[in-house]
């Protein structure tokens, strides 16, 4: 049966015309956050400057290129790169995680704070920590999981309350799926989770 199923489905492929149509569509489509997120990025850029005054922050302007670099609270670096009407960004993971595991205990560490969040964390449980900056922008740090696979998600919002981006350090399972708490936490915060069912 396996053989006949293989032979039958091997014959099926998408219509070439449709393939080309989708390719063109994908090339033309700009990411929805392109403009809005850039504007939001500028707000966050200011936010982070206020939030971490000592941070090395700069903008590079060239004829057709704008690079915006800033740092998160724990030393991570986010680079927004706008060139030829295309926006991209890269994230360098921070030197210090927001999560520290000591034996069976999970701690959230941010600045000089170290909070025991063990009781709030689990496979589908997480601890929520919110930092509101003077301009109204905010960083939400979500820590969850078990001591064996604890991780964090950081969500950054601009001063209008619009979600800008996230950074995360979460151990995935062998199929590449993030733990249940991540999907739940991001969904509860109203940001895209990557799960089409939840996001719609």
């Amino acid at each position, binding site marked *: *049966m*396996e053989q*006949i*199923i*293989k*032979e*039958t*489905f091997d*014959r*099926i*492929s*998408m*219509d070439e015309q*449709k*393939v080309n149509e*989708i*390719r063109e*569509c*994908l*090339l033309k*489509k*700009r*990411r*929805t*956050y392109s403009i809005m997120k850039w504007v939001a990025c500028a707000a966050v850029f200011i936010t982070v400057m206020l939030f971490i005054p000592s941070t090395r922050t700069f903008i590079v302007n060239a004829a057709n290129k704008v690079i915006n670099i800033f740092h998160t609270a724990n030393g991570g670096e986010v680079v927004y790169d706008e060139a030829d009407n*295309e926006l*991209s960004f890269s994230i360098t993971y921070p030197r210090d995680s927001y999560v520290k595991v000591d034996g069976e205990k999970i701690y959230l560490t941010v600045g000089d704070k170290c909070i025991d969040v063990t009781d709030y964390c689990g496979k589908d449980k997480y601890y929520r920590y919110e930092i509101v900056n003077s301009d109204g922008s905010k960083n939400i740090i979500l820590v969850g999981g078990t001591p064996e696979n604890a991780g964090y998600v950081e969500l950054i919002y601009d001063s209008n309350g619009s979600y800008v*981006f*996230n950074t995360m350090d979460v151990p*995935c*399972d062998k*199929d*590449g*799926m993030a733990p249940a708490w991540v999907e739940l936490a991001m969904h509860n915060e109203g940001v*895209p989770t*990557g*799960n*089409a*069912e939840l996001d*719609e």
Partner: protein
Amino acid sequence: MKNEKVLKLFNLYANDLYRFALSYVGIRQEAEDIVQNLFLKLISKNLVIKSEYEKAYLYKMAANMCKDYMKSAANKGLANYDDLENLIADRNAISEREESLYNSLMNLPETYRIPIYLHYYEGYTYHEIATILKLSDSAVAMRISRGKEMLKNLEV
């Protein structure tokens, strides 16, 4: 995700995802739309997927979108599938056995059809199918076993 990256994923997996969506929804145009919407969604998402997990992630996304379609199709009373000859360019190349297999498979309830497709065509393990379809390993094993029996009874 960057357009170039999405295009690369499209070139790699579009046909696999199309066949998967087709095995789910049975209708060529709907399967094509699901594939198109899936990749458009990827562009608008801030996602970084490790390359070794890309395929599983895309299948999971496709499965969610197909489920949504099936729900709405059921609500609208739509339950049909395109004949195999409408899906293959060279219609003369289709054997009776292939046509019979395809019809039998598409007549199986979705519950059995999808795990059978993923296992026998894609070669996924029960555990991998369980992850994609959000089922337990034992439920997948049971569905494949029953589905196989049903296919046999349909004289495949």
